C-alpha cells in the first residue's frame, strides 16, 4: 500500500494558549524584596504565627491572609532532598543535581531549591547551607536570584529543630 492510501490513525493537535500571568499580592511583595536581594517571609499579624516563605497569600493552616512581612536569613537547613538523575524539561541544569527542601532561618516552612558546591553523596538532612546569589546586576523578580545553596561549616540542626530556627540561626 502506498503511503497516500494508509488510513489516518494519529493526528497532531497543537494547543497553544497565551496568558498574561499576574503574581498575587503576597508573592509580588516577596518577589519585590528578592529583587533587592532580601529573602522574606510572611505571616498572619500575630506574634507566634508561623512564617511562610515563599508566601502564597494565606496562612494555609488557618486560611487567613499573611499580612506581616518578616525578613529572613539567607542561611537555611536541609529538611530533606532528592538527587535528580533525569533532566527537567526546559531546564538547562545537567543531572545529577540536588533539589533540596530548605527552611530558611526565621521561616517555618521549606521551599525547594538547588544545592551545589557540594558532594552529592554527602548531602544530608539537618545540614546547614547558605544562598549563593547571582551578581546584583542580574537580580530580578525571581527566586533564581539565588543561584543555589551551598553547605556551610556549621553543626547540623537536630531534626526536631528543623523549621524552628529564628532568623539568627542556631544561636537564637
Amino acid at each position, binding site marked *: 500500500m502506498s503511503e497516500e492510501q494508509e488510513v489516518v490513525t494519529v493526528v497532531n493537535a497543537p494547543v497553544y494558549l497565551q496568558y498574561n500571568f*499576574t503574581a498575587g499580592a503576597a508573592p509580588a511583595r516577596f518577589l519585590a524584596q528578592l529583587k533587592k536581594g532580601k529573602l522574606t517571609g510572611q505571616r498572619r499579624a500575630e506574634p507566634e504565627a508561623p512564617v511562610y516563605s515563599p508566601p502564597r497569600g494565606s496562612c494555609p*493552616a488557618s*486560611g487567613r491572609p499573611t499580612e506581616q512581612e518578616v525578613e529572613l536569613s539567607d542561611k537555611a537547613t536541609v529538611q530533606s532532598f532528592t538527587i535528580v538523575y533525569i533532566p527537567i524539561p526546559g531546564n538547562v541544569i545537567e543531572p545529577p543535581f540536588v533539589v533540596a527542601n530548605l527552611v530558611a532561618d526565621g521561616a517555618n516552612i521549606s521551599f525547594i531549591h538547588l544545592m551545589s558546591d557540594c558532594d552529592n553523596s554527602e548531602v544530608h538532612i539537618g545540614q546547614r547551607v547558605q544562598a549563593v546569589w547571582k551578581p546584583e546586576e542580574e537580580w530580578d523578580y525571581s527566586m533564581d536570584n539565588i543561584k543555589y545553596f551551598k553547605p556551610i561549616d556549621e553543626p547540623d540542626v537536630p531534626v526536631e529543630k528543623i523549621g524552628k530556627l529564628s532568623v539568627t540561626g542556631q544561636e537564637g
Partner: protein
Amino acid sequence: MKDIAIVAYQQSDGVSDAGAVNEVELIMPVLERTFTQARLGSAQDVDFVCSGSCDYLQGAAFAFVAGVDALGAVPPIKESHVEMDAAWALYESILKIRMGHAESALIYGFGKSSPGELPIVLSQQLDPYYLAPQWIDSISLAAMQARLMLDQGLITERDMAEVVSRSRRNAMSNPHAQLAGDVSPEDVLAQATYLSPLRKADCCPVSDGASAVVIATVEKAREWGLPYAIISGIDHRIETHNLGMRDLTDSVSTRTAAKHAGMQDGRVDVAELYAPFSHQEIILTRALGLGAETSINPSGGVLAGNLMMASGLSRIGEVFNRIVGGEAQRGVAHTTSGPCLQHNLVTVLEKA
C-alpha cells in the same frame, strides 16, 4: 428526603482584571464575609466543602489546590472539587447531605479569566478533532445561535436589546455588578455589531471573582438561627455535543431539568438565568415557560458580570437573596456549561 436550606451567600465584585490578586487572595475575602454571614468561624464549622474551578482560565493545572489554602483545613476537612461551575459543587454537596454524611456544607467557585483570552480558551472544550483545532471562539458560536433565532423570526434584535437594557438597569442596584447603567434598548441598538449579529452589549463581560454559599439542613439552619431559603428541587441535564444535532433555538435540557426540579409546582416570582448572551436569556425564559409574574435577572444576570465557575452558584445565591429579603416567595436559578447552553442545571428555592 431532608429539606436543605441556603443560609449564606457572598460574591466578590465582578472586575475585568483583579490585578495582583491570586486565587487564594480572590477567595479569602469572600469566604470571610460568608463565614460572618453564617456566623461560622471557618470551614471547620461545616461538615463538607466543595468547590468549582477550571485550570485553563488562568493556565495552571490544579487551580483548586490553591483554593484549599483559603479554607483553614487543619485539622483536615471533608472536601471535594468539580472542574465545573460551583453550582455543580452545590449539587454534589446536596447529595452528601441527603445521604446523611453532612448537615452543612460550604460551596465556593472562583475564576480569574483575565490572564487568558477566554473566548479562545473555551474553544478548547469543543470536539477535540473537529472543532477545537479550528479555534472557534465561544462568542461566534453564540452569534450563530442568535442568527438562527433571528432568521426564524423567534426574536428580533430589539428583543435582545431589551434584555440588555433591563440587565444594565437592574444591575444598578447590584453593588457587585461590573456593567450597570441607565441604558435604553435604543442605546443598545445604536451600537455597531461586534460579532454579527451580536453587539458587544449582547455578550457578557469577562470577569474575575469568586462567590460562596453555605447550605445546611433546615434543622441546622434553625439551630443556627439564620434566615434561610429552602432548596425545594435541583436537577441538571446535558445534551449531545454535536451542535448541529441540537435545536439551538430551544433548551430542551433546561426544560427537562426544571421539570425534575419541580419548578412547575408553584408560582415563580424570581428567576436568575445564566445567560452569557442576551438571546440565550430569551431561550431560557421560554424553555422554562416564565411569564410576566416572574422578575428575570433582578441582579442584572451575567450580562452585568460573568464570574466563570462561580456565576452559576451566584445565580442560586441571588435568588436566595430575593427570598430572604422578602421580595419573593419562590424562585428559580439556572446554571449553564458548555457551548450554546449544552448543559443546564435548575434549582428551585422557596421561602421557609
